[in-house]
């Protein structure tokens, strides 16, 4: 069902966890569809120094979160804002059609985390 890249990120998800003193946090999804993804960011000098995530979701959600953190880490805020669900899905080498929304979760959570950072700043 999933390609080897997705399975790799599913098996060995990168950057799982929380950042205790995060500068921003974003959560999307709701329990009724079972999809929840939370992203934590640490921002310094306009650079995303650290990105971590947690999810309650399917294989695609776990892999999307993992890929997202890899894509976002080390990027400028502007570059991070440019990451979309398609960026994530493409980097994973594609997701099954009905799993596209799982990559939405990841990108949306990052954008929310950036908003959170902006308002706190």
């Amino acid at each position, binding site marked *: 069902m*999933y390609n080897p890249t997705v399975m790799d990120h*599913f*098996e060995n*998800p990168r950057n*799982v966890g929380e950042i205790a003193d995060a500068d921003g946090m974003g*959560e999307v999804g709701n*329990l*009724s*569809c*079972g*999809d*929840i*993804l*939370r992203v934590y960011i640490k921002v310094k000098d306009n650079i995303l120094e650290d990105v971590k995530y*947690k*999810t*309650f*979701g*399917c*294989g*695609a*959600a*776990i892999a999307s979160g993992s890929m997202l953190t890899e894509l976002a880490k080390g990027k400028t805020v502007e570059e991070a804002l440019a990451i979309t669900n398609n960026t994530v899905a493409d980097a994973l080498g594609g997701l099954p059609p*009905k799993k596209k929304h*799982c990559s939405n979760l990841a990108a949306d959570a990052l954008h929310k985390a950036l908003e959170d950072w902006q308002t706190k700043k």
Partner: protein
Amino acid sequence: MKKVYMDHSATTPLHPEVIDLMKFAMEHVYGNPSSLYSLGQEAKKYVDEARQKVADLIGAGFDEIYFTGGGTESDNLAIQGAVYGNEKKGNHIITSAVEHPAVLDCCRNLEKKGYELTILPVDQYGMVDPEEVNKAIKKNTVLISVMHGNNENGTIQPVQEISKIAKKQGIFFHTDCVQTVGKIPVHVDDLGADLLTISSHKIYGPKGVGLLYKRKGVRVQPLIYGGGQERRIRSGTENTLGIIGFGKAAEIAARDLETENRRVKVLRDKLIKGVLEKIPQSYLNGHKEKRLPHNAHFSFAYVEGESLLLSLDMKGIAVSTGSACSSTSLQASHVLIACGQSQELVHGSIRFTLGRDNTEEDVDYVLSVLPGVVERFRSFSPLGGENAL
């Protein structure tokens, strides 16, 4: 890597004796059973032998068996067939909230076409209350369809009591026995069934073949018209190879019913005990006693089923889940929801269904692997822990 198949309610491998007979039939039984020459009549003999075997399995008459293309078709033929075939009797159907989609979606479609439908609620174990059936009956009720054993949580319904109520009111009673046949005794008279569904591939026979038992005298309109096979109820050249395999599987199911299911139940009980002991916040779904002997169905808080399933697969363990993420419709198990379970727990549900090929080692292996997998996903989860719901 160790391979443990524990999804026998989804489908089963062919029994070796079924394979042997089917290999023989592939080479030697190729006539069309409707043909008059000897090659055709020979094929017919094999089909008739199979018909006798499946009839014997459920205590039915030879002439009350109608072969179909599977359990789903049999359910549809029973329901659409009985409703369309008895329009003068009424236009109201009663079924339960925990039926297989083959029953539930078929009934919902009839509702769209203007028929009246009552979907009975169930208790926390997924059990229908016969009293509710009684209350739901109207003057125009033509059919009651309640399954024998549930394919998800394994709960066994009080089918005898329900069929008695139906009979008293002169209403046809259909029961889906796809999950119970070969697991617990299924006898058409004991169950009081007018119509009864069985599928071959759940009892170590081939996929794509099933049967509808139709009690003599019950009117059913065909779904499929044509050459008039299966005494006009189900046209189409007979799936001889599939039917022959199904017959053999039925013979074996009858023969091994008691011993095999006693054996499997011991393993299953060990699995349930082990899981509930080793994994905190794990819950057994379905009824504790009134359940299929091979079914162990759990919900684990704070984890999602599809991820669990994929991780177990990587360790060689095949199971299924009621999580929304795993279904084509992205909807969580209607069975667990009907039992009143929270969406979140439903998402973390995993079904183990044991079978002939499972050993105690398999159970031990699952018990050695599962707690770690659950734990790992819990550590990823934004739910639970300090963020507990």
